[in-house]
């Protein structure tokens, strides 16, 4: 029974997907953004084939601040190699393009991991609050109100300051700021659906909980959650860079776009090429996620279907 429900659910979804794509592809900006994001994702996945991680995290102070296209001799693993710095080198003589490529990986991981954590925690809490109601609902929503009334940036700073500066703590700090959003979305969707006649009817004719969740509740939650999470991936990358600015982000020499930009900020006059690459990478990625998010919202919003 459960299996059957699932396969029918999948079949319905695939029909929905074609319909959705037709809607989504009307927004050319969103489609272009999607391609951009895919390209960055490929770069992030194959970063190791383009540059070795060890190489992009090794200093060679003799090659510091080379202009884009310049060539330098790098003393690397007891060997002297000649290397062309396509986008120039930073203040430690490291290849900016290489760091950008590896930074794509770290930034993407930050973006997706924080959102995944927020969806998992926020979705679960929101579902409990919406489904169970009563005391659970009151308790969860009160705590959400409390967390929401603390300025998010301060909350993140305080979390990193309290737990210490590490990659995982940074993920916690960023995702904490997003959790209340998901709690609210999921809870609101569930409450609005739970008491609808058709859900009650389904329950009356003996539909299983799984069927109710998959057939009626999940489709209604997915679209707002997808939209919200797409937008959040972008803001999470921005968030990480802001924390880097405050000295609480990913620690160098590990390359991440946010810390590259933040480290380069004093070079704005001296060597502007240091800021150009990570700044543009962040700008394009976040913009792309925002545009995709907008596109998704338009495509998934039943009211806008024409």
């Amino acid at each position, binding site marked *: 029974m459960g299996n059957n429900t699932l396969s029918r659910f999948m079949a319905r979804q695939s029909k929905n997907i074609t319909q959705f794509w037709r809607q989504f592809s009307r927004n050319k900006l969103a489609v272009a953004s999607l391609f951009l994001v895919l390209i960055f994702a490929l770069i992030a996945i194959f970063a190791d084939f383009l540059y070795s991680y060890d190489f992009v995290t090794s200093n060679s102070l003799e090659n510091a601040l080379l202009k884009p296209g310049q060539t330098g001799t790098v003393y690397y693993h007891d060997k002297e190699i000649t290397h062309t710095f396509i986008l120039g080198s930073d203040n430690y003589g490291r290849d900016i393009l290489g760091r950008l490529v590896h930074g794509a990986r770290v930034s993407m991981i930050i973006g997706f991991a924080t959102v995944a954590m927020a969806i998992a925690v926020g979705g679960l809490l929101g579902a409990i609050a919406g489904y169970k109601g009563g005391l659970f609902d009151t308790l969860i929503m009160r705590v959400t109100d409390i967390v929401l009334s603390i*300025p*998010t940036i301060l909350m993140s700073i305080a979390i990193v*300051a309290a737990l210490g500066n590490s990659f995982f703590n940074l993920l916690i700090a960023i995702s904490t700021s997003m959790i209340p959003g998901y709690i609210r979305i999921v809870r609101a969707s569930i409450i609005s659906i739970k008491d609808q006649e058709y859900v009650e009817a389904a329950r009356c004719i003996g539909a299983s909980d799984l069927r109710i969740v998959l057939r009626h509740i999940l489709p209604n939650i997915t679209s707002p959650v997808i939209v919200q999470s797409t937008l959040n991936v972008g803001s999470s990358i921005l968030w990480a860079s802001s924390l880097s*600015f405050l000295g609480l982000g990913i620690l160098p020499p590990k390359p991440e776009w946010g810390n590259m930009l933040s480290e380069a900020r004093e070079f704005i006059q001296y060597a502007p090429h240091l800021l150009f690459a990570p700044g543009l990478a962040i700008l394009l990625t*976040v913009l792309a996620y925002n545009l995709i998010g*907008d596109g998704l*919202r338009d495509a998934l919003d039943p009211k806008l279907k024409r």
Partner: protein
Amino acid sequence: MFRYIMRRILMLIPVLLGVTFIVFSLMYITPSDPAQMMLGANASPAAYKQMRADMGLDQPFIVQYARFLFGYKHPVFGYRGLLFGDLGRSYVSNRNVFELILSSFPNTLILATGALVLALVLAIPIGILSATKPYSAVDMIFTVFALLGASMPVFWIAMVLIYTFANNLRLFPAMANPHDFSSLVLPIITLSMYSMAIIMRMTRSSMLDVMQQDYIRTARVKGMDEKVVIFKHALRNALIPVVTVAGLQFGSLLGGAVLTEKIFSYPGLGSIMVDAIYQKDTPQILGSVCFVAMTFTIINLMVDVLYGFIDPRIKSVFSAKKKRR
């Protein structure tokens, strides 16, 4: 209506207590050490122990938290407690916490108000324009421009603005100061970028939503001028969700001005709070966060009330609640 407002204000109390508990817990596990900081270099272990005892830092968590709420008696470090409106003095600046907040909060308020006004003035017309011609080139250009601001790290926007307008063109100063309007221009632009994108997006989607409604179609069928349709019929309804978003944005601007204040070395509450976290200045951070949380909640309440005035349908919420009581 009045009872509704009173009820919401009373609900502030548990929220604020929750805020103090969360912030206090976070500060408690922060590894920094105010006793060590006050003692300076090379303090003897005896002096250190004495200082921790004087400051009450050697007590268990629950005792320390209770002291922050109900007060602590000590000739130098004592205070009456948060519940009696006194958190004592900042560990770092030795100033009365609430005096310090009251002197710096208006500065943040100026900045946030300016940013919100700028965001509204630019975002609403752009949003309307985009919504009237969805998916056209105009829409695309405006969308991208509005989103550009929300796609750059705040410190980066600020730096580019300072570099261009302060350093090179000498149009505005690079250091902000609440008494000089020209110095506020750059920080306000910086701060408004993100809100502008959010409000613009909200206006656009809400406008699109309204334009689909039957009564707009009817108005169009009746042969009304498109401008009249948009400004007279659609806009009023489309602005309702925008008000909510603007209210929420104002709240987050107050707390989110941290980075902007830091870069422009602006004497607001945000930069004080960040420093206080680093220095584990618990009284200062507790007081400030409570204050911001309170303001945030009150602004939300005001938005809700305002909402009732704009949209007559909402008024029933207030009266319905009254009836239930």
